[in-house]
């Protein structure tokens, strides 16, 4: 060692060399991780691939049927092209919003809280290169679910439109290019918020998300409220579609995507390439702006975030929040009187961990608040103008909203529960509680929250819609099954696909396991919604039949009983199967 000249020959690597170094690092990490996954857990990888293919196929079938429906609609209402244009516009607009926030939140954790960043910031790595490296990671994590959702949609569209082969070559660069712009906006927003409000950054972000969501809900309610006078007719549909026109504004990236992809499908490749260039150039410019900003403020923002903790004096608000939290814990302990002491302590530990994570808590409050706002607004619907059947359909739609929102909620918050035990996982093995009970306590914790919120919202909705009691019973049963099933799926798969090395819950939820869980949850939710719709329709068929038509009446009632039984059977299977899979994996785990 002493033979070497000292100090060694070294030079500060420039930006492009550092970028190449970080790219190689990412490639090696991915290669090593994939190789290890194939070597150590082939079954899991196989399962993930098969499930992904099944889900991709399911989505493709769903989109294909949707386009066939629109084609058939064209014969009676010649507006299917217009509807597709609007749907594409809305789809990409909603995704723009989701990507902005998900990349922003992801980067907040990885740029300012992760041990890796602390390590990199102590090396000569340039701020913009660290930013670029974490940005690519954020786009990968937030974007691959988008590709899984977007590719079957666009392939189904291409096949339905009988698009030429260049369309299939172009749609992927469109999707990838589209990711960059919202991701860069999210990243820029994250840097600016953290730099300007290092202490209250989470509050600011929460308020921004809340504002956007409230505006979206108000807009949706307004759309339906304004179009109410027309009833469910072609005129109503046209009026509704007209209200959606702002989503087609030429300056929106969602519009560039819509026009570009539709042009490609109709073989207008000059237009398609123009819009593709527009998407990419704007995305890259936004990224450049974000990277330029990172050079100036990233290290300062990092210092700001890590210099806020440890304030000695708690404000009145802080003390009030602390008192509220303590009261909440005591109430939870009282409500868990039916559990034994170790299980209660375990559930309370999860509850405390959850409520102390302000990011997670804010997301739950926002999600819950929006749902509450939506359901409260149902009373503005002009009930007098809707027949029983239409109100029942609205009720069923509300069950669908609850189911889909709950699938998102359980995938985001329940799925990471087991993974978040992390490095202290061995403590679970030493606890004087059996593994069955540990798993069931996680399930009980998740189910208690989902059942309370789900049934609460569904009851408000059903009461406000003044539906017949058998319909109310079926809808509430469906929501109960959704709550229990989705909780079991997330707890079971969260244990089976556990990721003990990751500490960031967003990363766990948006990772491979989390996405598989989300897709399985969505498929289950859709199945329950469809099965809940059958008895709803049969109920009206039953009422329409006269008492004399005994054969038809018997058949309808038999079908009614069968569909409710099928609903219950799917629910029971959705609770038992994932929990068994999770438990089997949990028993095999070594601590």
């Amino acid at each position, binding site marked *: 060692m002493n033979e070497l000249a000292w100090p060694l*020959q070294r030079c500060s690597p420039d930006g492009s060399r550092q970028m190449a170094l970080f790219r190689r690092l990412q490639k090696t990490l991915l290669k090593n991780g994939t190789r290890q996954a194939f070597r150590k857990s082939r079954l899991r990888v196989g399962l993930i691939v098969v499930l992904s293919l099944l889900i991709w196929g399911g989505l493709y079938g769903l989109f294909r049927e949707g386009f066939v429906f629109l084609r058939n609609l064209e014969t009676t209402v010649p507006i299917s092209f217009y509807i597709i244009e609007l749907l594409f516009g809305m789809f990409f607009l909603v995704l723009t919003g989701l990507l902005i926030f998900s990349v922003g939140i992801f980067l907040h954790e990885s740029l300012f809280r992760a041990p890796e960043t602390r390590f990199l910031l102590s090396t000569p790595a340039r701020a913009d290169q660290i930013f670029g490296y974490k940005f690519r990671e954020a786009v990968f994590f937030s974007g691959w679910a988008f590709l899984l959702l977007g590719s079957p949609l666009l392939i189904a569209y291409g096949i339905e439109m009988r698009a030429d082969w260049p369309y299939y070559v172009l749609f992927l660069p469109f999707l990838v290019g589209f990711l960059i712009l919202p991701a860069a906006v999210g990243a820029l927003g994250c840097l600016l918020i953290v730099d300007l409000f290092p202490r209250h950054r989470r509050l600011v972000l929460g308020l921004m998300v809340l504002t956007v969501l409230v505006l979206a809900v108000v807009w949706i309610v307004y759309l339906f409220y304004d179009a109410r006078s027309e009833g469910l007719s072609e005129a109503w549909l046209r009026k509704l579609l007209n209200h959606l026109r702002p989503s087609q504004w030429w300056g929106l990236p969602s519009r560039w995507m819509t026009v570009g992809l539709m042009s490609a499908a109709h073989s207008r490749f000059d237009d398609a390439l123009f819009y593709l260039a527009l998407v990419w150039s704007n995305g890259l410019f936004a990224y450049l702006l974000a990277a330029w900003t990172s050079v100036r403020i990233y290290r300062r923002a990092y210092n700001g975030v890590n210099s806020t*903790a440890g304030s000695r004096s708690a404000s009145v608000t802080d003390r009030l929040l602390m008192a509220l939290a303590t009261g909440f814990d005591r109430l939870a302990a009282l409500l868990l009187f039916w559990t034994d002491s170790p299980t209660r302590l375990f559930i309370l530990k999860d509850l405390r961990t959850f409520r102390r994570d302000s990011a997670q808590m804010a997301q739950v409050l926002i999600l819950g608040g929006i749902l509450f706002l939506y359901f409260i607004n149902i009373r503005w619907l002009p009930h007098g103008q809707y027949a029983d059947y239409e109100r029942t359909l609205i009720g069923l739609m509300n069950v669908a909203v609850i189911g889909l929102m709950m699938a998102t909620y359980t995938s985001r918050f329940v799925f990471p529960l087991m993974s978040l035990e992390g490095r202290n996982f061995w403590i679970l093995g030493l606890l004087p509680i059996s593994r069955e009970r540990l798993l069931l306590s996680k399930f009980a914790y998740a189910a208690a929250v989902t059942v309370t919120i789900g049934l609460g919202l569904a009851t408000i909705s059903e009461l406000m819609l003044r539906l017949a009691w058998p319909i109310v019973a079926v809808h509430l049963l469906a929501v109960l099954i959704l709550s229990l099933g989705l909780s079991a799926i997330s707890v079971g798969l969260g244990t089976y696909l556990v990721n003990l090395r990751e500490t960031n819950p967003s990363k766990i939820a948006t990772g491979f396991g989390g996405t598989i869980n989300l897709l399985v949850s969505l498929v289950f939710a859709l199945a329950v919604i469809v099965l809940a719709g059958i008895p709803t329709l049969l109920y009206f068929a039953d009422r329409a039949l006269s008492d004399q038509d005994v054969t038809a009446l018997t058949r309808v009632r038999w079908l009614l009983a069968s569909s409710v039984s099928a609903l219950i059977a799917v629910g029971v299977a959705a609770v038992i199967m994932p929990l068994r899979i999770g438990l089997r994996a949990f028993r095999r785990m070594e601590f």
Partner: protein
Amino acid sequence: MIELLDVSKLYGDKLAVDGLTLTISRGELFAFLGPNGAGKTTTIKMLCGLLFPSRGTIRIGGYDVQKQGDLARQIISYVPDQPFLYEKLTGREFLEFIREMYGMDPVQGRKRIDELIDVFELDSFVDDLTESYSHGMKQRTVFAAALLHQPEVLIVDEPMVGLDPKSQRLVKNLMRQEVARGGTVFMSTHLLGDVEELATRIGIVHRGRLIGCGTLDTLRKQAAHDGSLEDVFLRLTAEEEPAELTAKGAP
């Protein structure tokens, strides 16, 4: 080599470091001592440029850490108390990453990697993913990475935690070698025996303020006590406690 000029650091309204002025020369092994929460780790983070001082200036090798951070970090190595390694990289891949990060000549750098693998006895596991390493193995790998580019300033926070006696001896010898070559070592530790054995100068920080600085003899004089470093440390930090706390804590 290391200069801290009237450095203070605030966390919200809490003063973590209070007017710290310190100069450490080339070829010194400076031990930084203090009770828990005294401001040692905050000072180290400011030295590395992870945190900025609320007041004052820090210079490493003549570079202002806040304004010329990239140049300053080029000559620094930092070994934190909880070292970071990429779990999906092998030890060798991690060392290669560090070699490139510091812009080392490939031939010279690879030769140096081989030497360090030999010195730290990493050869039996260096080609495995680091996620399978024990704490001691990780610590040895991190030390190898820190010494790879032969830094002019080595900053270490609790370097002996998790190391077996043989590895501890190895790390001590390497730190001595660094100093003998003209490098500067800034070490924060609670192991006072190691400090007595290694340090050329000792700084004692308490409640963010430097309450003593010098050789062991200087500190003994300041404490008016001719005992071990432990006795001197306890006496100096006790003097700084408010009267009622000292009374409560007195046996």
